[in-house]
């Protein structure tokens, strides 16, 4: 038994085998593993599918039936095979549905930025303040009431928000104040009402994400600050918020990305005028509302109008993707802060 061993000590032996055997247990484990992987794979496949469709329709047509022959552009060539990127980026008119067609993305980007800018102006301060309140000030009892209410806010269908903007915010909030009192010209469809309701929509997102990062700031830091004679406000603003700052900024970026992608409420409330404007009381078209509008109308499949929505979709996708990447980057830095 111990003959192979170099040491003088004999090897212990219980006789129990450590070799692999094929058993029902092992088979079951394998099946579970495969099933779970398949579920995770669905979202990856979907993402790849979306990117492929966007790319194929916007950048370069991948389907074998259509190629550009002798400089003659075929009917269903991709958007950027028909329109130059230079025009797309520099042109200031967006009129794919008119007889004189111009394809400048600027008015749509401008509309999107205006609406999401107003949304950020509303949602970020309120969201952050409610996060600070929930994390630093509220008693557990009050927190148990406010958190579910905020979640209800997140659960309201966006179409409801859209009509709320159209039939309440514009006539009863914006017009009495800005038109009757201050003399601005407030259109029925306007960027401000859409921005306000989108801002309300992103409050739950900002407050719950920010609250998570605020609460993850170690209790010991708060105690140290209190022990130095801080008021609750000092502790919140000088210690907890700075310590959680990158996480908070990440939540802002995610919320703004969400505001940019918001479709239904904006389509209903903001109108369809693709203008380069900074006036919040004018009607604007955003990237998302343009996509809805074209896809709902009687646009011919394969036409340049139809292809244009993929180009717009790709632009929006790239903007929100880069914001997500930036927020991931910021969040990762945040993890290194205390340890």
């Amino acid at each position, binding site marked *: 038994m111990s003959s192979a061993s170099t040491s003088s000590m004999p090897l212990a032996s219980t006789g129990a085998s450590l070799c692999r055997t094929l058993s029902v247990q092992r088979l079951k484990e394998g099946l579970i593993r495969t099933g779970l992987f398949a579920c995770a794979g669905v979202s990856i496949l979907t993402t790849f599918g979306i990117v492929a469709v966007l790319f194929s329709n916007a950048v370069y047509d991948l389907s074998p039936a259509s190629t550009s022959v002798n400089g003659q552009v075929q009917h269903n060539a991709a958007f950027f095979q028909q329109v130059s990127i230079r025009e797309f980026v520099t042109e200031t008119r967006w009129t794919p549905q008119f007889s004189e067609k111009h394809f400048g993305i600027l008015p749509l980007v401008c509309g999107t930025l205006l609406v999401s800018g107003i949304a950020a102006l509303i949602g970020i301060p309120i969201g952050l303040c409610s996060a600070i309140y929930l994390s630093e000030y509220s008693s557990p009892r009050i927190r148990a009431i406010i958190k579910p209410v905020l979640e209800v806010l997140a659960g309201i269908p966006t179409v409801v928000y859209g009509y709320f903007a159209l039939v309440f915010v514009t006539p009863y909030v914006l017009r009495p104040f800005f038109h009757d009192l201050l003399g601005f010209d407030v259109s029925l469809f306007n960027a401000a009402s859409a921005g306000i309701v989108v801002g309300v929509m992103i409050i739950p997102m900002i407050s719950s994400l920010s609250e998570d990062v605020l609460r993850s700031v170690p209790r010991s830091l*708060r105690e140290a600050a*209190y*022990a*130095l*004679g801080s*008021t609750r406000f000092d502790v919140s603003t*000088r210690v907890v918020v700075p*310590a959680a700052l990158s996480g908070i900024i990440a939540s802002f970026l995610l919320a703004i990305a969400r505001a940019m992608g918001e479709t239904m409420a904006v389509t209903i409330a903001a109108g369809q005028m693709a203008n380069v404007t900074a006036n919040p009381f004018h009607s604007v078209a955003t990237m998302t509302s343009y996509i809805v509008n074209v896809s709902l109308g009687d646009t011919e499949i394969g036409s340049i109008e139809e292809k244009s929505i993929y180009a717009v979709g790709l632009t929006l996708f790239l903007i929100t993707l880069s914001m997500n990447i930036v927020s991931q980057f910021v969040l990762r830095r945040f993890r290194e802060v205390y340890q």
Partner: protein
Amino acid sequence: MNSSPDTMTRTAIDQLEGYSMNAGRSDSAATRGHHVSAVVPAVRPVVTATSSSRLEQTVKFQTKSLDFFYGDNQVLFNVSLDVPEKSVTALIGPSGCGKSTFLRTLNRMNDIIEGTRHTGDVLLEGTDVYAPQIDVVLLRKRVGMVFQKSTPFPKSIFDNVAYGPRVAGLKNRLRLAGIVEESLKRAALWDEVKDRLNKSAMALSGGQQQRLCIARTLATNPDVILMDEPASALDPASTARVEDLIFELKQNYTIVIVTHNMQQAARVSQQTAFFFQGELVETGDTRRLFTNPTQKQTEDYITGRFG
């Protein structure tokens, strides 16, 4: 069970109430304090000789029949302890005996925890710190605290030390710089960090971080420093530095230290209080308590028979 009552500083002005009666938040009073410390570089007048006789000493902190509860769970039972001024009082006892809780009642840190309550009195120079007119923010400025785990804020070294004075409303950069330098010198950290005050405090070693936390506490200009196992997470060399520091600081500050390390208690303290299961079993002169304990439980604990 109690130490004999010492002479109290009855004549001391009730500063806490005086502060809170000052209008306009704490800024006026606190900045005035720093005016003084800016003119006179020493944060506190230096006492040259430590008084050895206990009769000459005055009582800084006094608790009378203190009971303390977390919810329905009582953790302190009828604790009456006198803490003499400008000396080190060590609180020893096994884990969960209530010594940290006791320490945290002195600057009302337990207020932060939901569902805590107490009965009995905690007197700072004769004033009940739990009285309704007491401003807890001012109390904590006078009664600083250093924790077991060093807790530097994720800010620069300078901003860490300047935190307390800034919270108190001091904005003058020059005066802040003076306080930061003075506090770091008193915490024996200045020479190690003077060239990198604007670097993150998180980059310091554990021992340096703990001394930074002590400097940060000194910067608020306290009378009393509470230390909750300040060296338990440090290596022996850093521990020795912190102990030296405590020895220096006791000339000017009243120090109450919680420690698991009985050698440490014996080295740094003049008075020791032994807690067991929420009760103050024995208190007295450190040398006497360690050489000649009157209670059986104390003797068992310090000889290592339990705990």
